[in-house]
C-alpha cells in the first residue's frame, strides 16, 4: 500500500475518532460571555469533544469525563522544556509564551518526581499547618480594612484581596513581607494582560524583577537558612543531590502564581455577588456558623477561579468509546464540570447551603491544589471581616473590571465599593507588616507543622 493510501486511511480513522467536534476557544471574550451556553451545549452534545483550536486538542466538559481523565494514570502533566523526554507541553494550551526556561513546579511533573517535591510542600500547607497562621491572616485583613474604613470607599481587589494572599504566601515562603508589591503586581498582571496589550512590555519587566528577587532570595536563604518554603526546597535531596535550581524556581513561581490571583478572584466575585444579593449577604453573616463552610465551597464551585488544566495523553487509550492517541493534548475543564446538572442540581444558581457539593475547583487526583487550605482560610478571613466591618457595602458596577477573558484565571481587576464609614481598630498596613515581620522571625512561623505546632501569637 502506498504512503498516500496510508495517510488517507489514517485521516479517515482520525475523523471517526474525532467525530464529536466543537469549536472551543476559551481565550476569547465570547467564551466568558457565553460560558453557560457553551457548557450546556457541550455537556448535551459532546462532553468529550475534539476542537481544532490551538493545533487541535480534546476538551473534557462533562463531570464524568473530567472525573475519570483527571485521575487517569496515562495522562501526563509533564512539561518537557528542553526536549529531554517526550516533548510534552505541560498544563497550558496553547503553550505559555513565558514558559521557556522553567516549568511550572509540581503541576508540570509526573510521578514519581511529583510526589518527591509535593512531599516537601505538604507540611507547610496542610490544614493543620495553615490553621497556625489564622491570627496572622486576621491581622493583615484588619490592617488592610483599617486603611479604608474611615473613608467609606474601598476597592476590594486593590485594597484587600490583592494584599492578603500575597503577604501570607510570602510569609510562608520566608520572603520579606514588605516585598509583597514586587510579587503581587506581576502575578496579577501577567494573567490579566494579553500578549498584544501595549502594557505587555511593562508587565514583562515587572516579571523579570520578580524573577530576579526570587533568585536573590534563593541564594540568600542558601547562605543563611531561614524557615519557609524556599528553605524546604533548598534542603530537599533527591538521591543525595540537591534539587536543580530551575526546578526550585519553578515551584516558587507556582506557589506565587497559584497563591495570589486565584484567591483574589474568588474573593472579588463572591463579594460582588453578595453586594447584588443583600438578603443572602445578611443571611450568610447571621448564620455564618453553619453557612460559611458550605457557602465558601459553593462560591468555589460557581466561580471556579482556575477554570481548567491542560494534559497530554502519554499512551494510546480509550474512554467511553473515544480513542485517544499518545501525544494528543487535552483540556480538562473544572469550570464546566462544576456546572454539570447530573451532579449539581440547578448548576447555574448559587445555593449557599448546597449539599453534596463535590466540586472540581481545586482539581482532582494527585494534583489537587496544594494551597487549597490557604485559599479557604484567607478567603474566609477577608469575607467575614468585610461582613462585620462593612456590612452595608455596595459595589459600583461602573468601576468594576472583570478580566476580558477567563482562559487562565476567571479574575477581576477592580471592584470598587462604598459603605458607611467606621472606626479604625489599629495600625495601618505598613506598620502592621513591620510588626508581623518581627513576629514571623521571633516565632519562626514559617516552620513546617512537623517542627512547630502552635498558632501565631499577635501581640
Amino acid at each position, binding site marked *: 500500500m502506498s504512503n498516500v493510501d496510508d495517510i488517507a486511511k489514517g485521516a479517515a480513522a482520525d475523523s471517526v475518532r474525532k467525530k464529536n467536534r466543537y469549536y472551543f476557544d476559551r481565550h476569547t471574550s465570547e467564551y466568558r460571555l457565553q460560558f453557560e451556553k457553551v457548557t450546556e451545549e457541550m455537556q448535551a452534545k459532546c462532553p468529550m469533544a475534539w476542537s481544532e483550536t490551538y493545533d487541535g486538542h480534546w476538551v473534557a466538559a462533562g463531570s464524568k469525563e473530567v*472525573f475519570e481523565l483527571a*485521575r487517569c494514570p496515562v495522562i501526563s502533566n509533564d512539561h518537557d522544556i528542553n526536549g529531554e523526554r517526550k516533548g510534552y507541553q505541560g498544563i497550558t494550551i496553547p503553550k505559555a509564551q513565558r514558559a521557556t526556561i522553567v516549568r511550572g513546579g509540581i503541576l508540570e511533573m509526573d510521578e514519581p518526581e511529583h510526589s518527591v517535591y509535593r512531599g516537601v510542600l*505538604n*507540611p507547610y500547607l*496542610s*490544614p*493543620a*499547618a495553615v490553621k497556625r497562621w489564622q491570627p496572622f491572616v486576621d491581622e493583615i485583613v484588619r490592617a488592610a480594612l483599617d486603611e479604608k474604613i474611615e473613608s467609606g470607599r474601598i476597592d476590594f481587589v486593590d485594597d484587600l484581596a490583592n494584599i492578603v494572599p500575597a503577604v501570607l504566601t510570602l510569609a510562608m515562603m520566608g520572603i520579606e513581607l514588605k516585598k509583597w508589591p514586587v510579587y503581587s503586581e506581576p502575578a496579577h498582571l501577567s494573567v490579566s494582560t494579553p500578549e498584544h496589550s501595549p502594557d505587555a512590555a511593562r508587565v514583562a519587566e515587572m516579571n523579570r524583577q520578580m524573577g530576579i528577587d526570587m533568585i536573590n532570595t534563593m541564594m540568600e536563604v542558601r547562605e543563611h537558612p531561614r524557615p519557609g518554603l524556599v528553605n524546604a526546597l533548598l534542603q530537599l535531596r533527591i538521591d543525595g543531590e540537591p534539587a536543580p535550581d530551575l526546578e526550585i524556581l519553578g515551584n516558587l513561581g507556582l506557589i506565587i502564581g497559584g497563591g495570589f490571583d486565584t484567591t483574589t478572584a474568588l474573593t472579588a466575585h463572591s463579594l460582588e455577588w453578595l453586594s447584588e444579593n443583600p438578603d443572602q449577604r445578611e443571611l450568610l453573616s447571621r448564620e455564618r456558623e453553619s453557612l460559611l*463552610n458550605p457557602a465558601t*465551597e459553593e462560591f468555589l464551585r460557581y466561580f471556579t477561579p482556575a477554570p481548567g488544566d491542560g494534559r497530554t495523553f502519554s499512551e494510546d487509550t480509550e474512554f467511553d468509546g473515544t480513542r485517544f492517541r499518545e501525544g494528543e493534548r487535552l483540556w480538562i475543564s473544572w469550570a464546566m464540570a462544576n456546572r454539570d446538572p447530573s451532579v449539581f442540581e440547578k448548576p447555574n444558581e448559587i445555593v449557599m447551603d448546597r*449539599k*453534596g*457539593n*463535590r*466540586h*472540581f475547583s*481545586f482539581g*482532582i*487526583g*494527585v494534583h*489537587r491544589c496544594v494551597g*487549597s*487550605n490557604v485559599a479557604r482560610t484567607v478567603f474566609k478571613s477577608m469575607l467575614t471581616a468585610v461582613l462585620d466591618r462593612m456590612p452595608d457595602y455596595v459595589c459600583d458596577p461602573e468601576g468594576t473590571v472583570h478580566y476580558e477573558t477567563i482562559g487562565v484565571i476567571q479574575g477581576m481587576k477592580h471592584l470598587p465599593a462604598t459603605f458607611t464609614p467606621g472606626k479604625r481598630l489599629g495600625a495601618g498596613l505598613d506598620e502592621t507588616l513591620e510588626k508581623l515581620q518581627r513576629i514571623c522571625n521571633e516565632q519562626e512561623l514559617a516552620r513546617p*507543622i*512537623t517542627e512547630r505546632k502552635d498558632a501565631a501569637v499577635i501581640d
Partner: protein
Amino acid sequence: MKVFVDSERCQGHTLCSMIAPDSFELSDIDGTSSPVNEVVPPEQEDAVREAVQSCPEQAISIEE
C-alpha cells in the same frame, strides 16, 4: 453503619471533616482523611452520608 476512606483515592480535599468533623480526622502532614471510628455513632450517620456525597474523589464508602 460502617465508614471507610480509600487512602489510595483520598487527596486531602478536607470536605469530609468540614461536614462531619466528629467522624473524620485529617493528617497533620498532608490533610488526608481517615475515619475516627469505623463504626459510625447513630447521631453522626446523616453527616457521614453527606460527606460520602461531597467527596470530590469519591473516596468514602459506607456499609449500612
